[in-house]
């Protein structure tokens, strides 16, 4: 399936190293338009602008957590369909189920590989395309 490599992606993580890694991996996968946020709280006003086609976020951040950001997105009529991928060190079963309940599209546990990221992105946008065709 062809994914639109021109889409706007928001990368949210409080560690700049992780943002750099994620951005570089996305670049390698052919994406080129990224913005960064260092917390859910700084990400949320950016997301509200409606600019982003895809959000990649960490869970554990000081002000607003990734799961909270996800809930904000899902609760907003205009934004609720934005694909949302969590990349996190949080690995308790209860947390993964909670993320699923909140409407996450993909869940990657750190440390992760480029192949895993690619696979999840493929899967997410395949499902988006399926939904649109219905």
């Amino acid at each position: 399936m062809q994914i639109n490599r021109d889409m706007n992606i928001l990368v949210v993580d409080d560690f700049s190293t992780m943002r750099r890694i994620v951005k570089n991996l996305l670049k390698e996968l052919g994406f080129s338009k990224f913005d960064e946020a260092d917390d859910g709280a700084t990400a949320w006003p950016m997301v509200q602008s409606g600019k982003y086609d895809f959000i990649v976020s960490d869970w554990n951040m000081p002000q607003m957590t990734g799961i909270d950001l996800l809930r904000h997105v899902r609760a907003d009529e205009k934004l609720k369909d934005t694909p949302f991928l969590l990349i996190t060190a949080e690995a308790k079963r209860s947390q993964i189920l909670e993320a699923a309940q909140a409407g996450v599209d993909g869940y990657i546990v750190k440390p992760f590989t480029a192949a895993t990221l690619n696979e999840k992105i493929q899967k997410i946008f395949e499902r988006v395309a399926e939904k649109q065709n219905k």
Partner: protein
Amino acid sequence: MTFSTDIHVDKVRALLQAMEAGDERCTVEILDDITQIRKSELHQQLSELTKNLHQTLDDLDVDTPVLLHAKHDLPDITERLQYVLNETQKASDKTLGSSENTLGLLEEVGTMLEGSDEVSKIQPLLDQASQELTNIMLAQSFQDLTGQVLNRVILIVTELEESLKALIERSRHDYDAIPQKTQSEAEQSAEHEKGVGPNVTAKSKLDAVESQADVDDLLSDLGI
């Protein structure tokens, strides 16, 4: 500065007189007298402090936070620091391995280019790439420095743990009787909501998935 009331001004005056008179025996005697007072005072204060400490320790319940910290949190700290040490070590090893492999590849490319017309254009780029890789390898020396610091902290924490254990046992508490830390369900779910970071201790690994495959299994049941 405060003076002890036990050292009388007369005594100091007598000391001064004895010194002025050059009476060495008398000077020493008075000096000894004064320092003796100070010593016994210090002794008294120390024994009071010790008594207080004992009393405080005796009054502690077996599940007092400080005892729980001593028994559970200090070993937890050590376990977490050890994790940092291992992970940074693994990452540096991986970085060094990949850098070495890439240096080998660049060398191979250089050999293949020998005699070709393009060599003068490409070789400088290969050299530059090798230089960058060397920089990457050198940056891994952080592992040595941070590793030494972490080892030192682990040692200090372990010693602190031993001292606290000895203190607890000396105050007639049974170290083994200090219970596990408990967390209510609400506390636990609030903590999970906030995020707990990597599950690195044996205890925190309970109920955690071990790999991405586990996550995928869990979510595929839910159609994600």
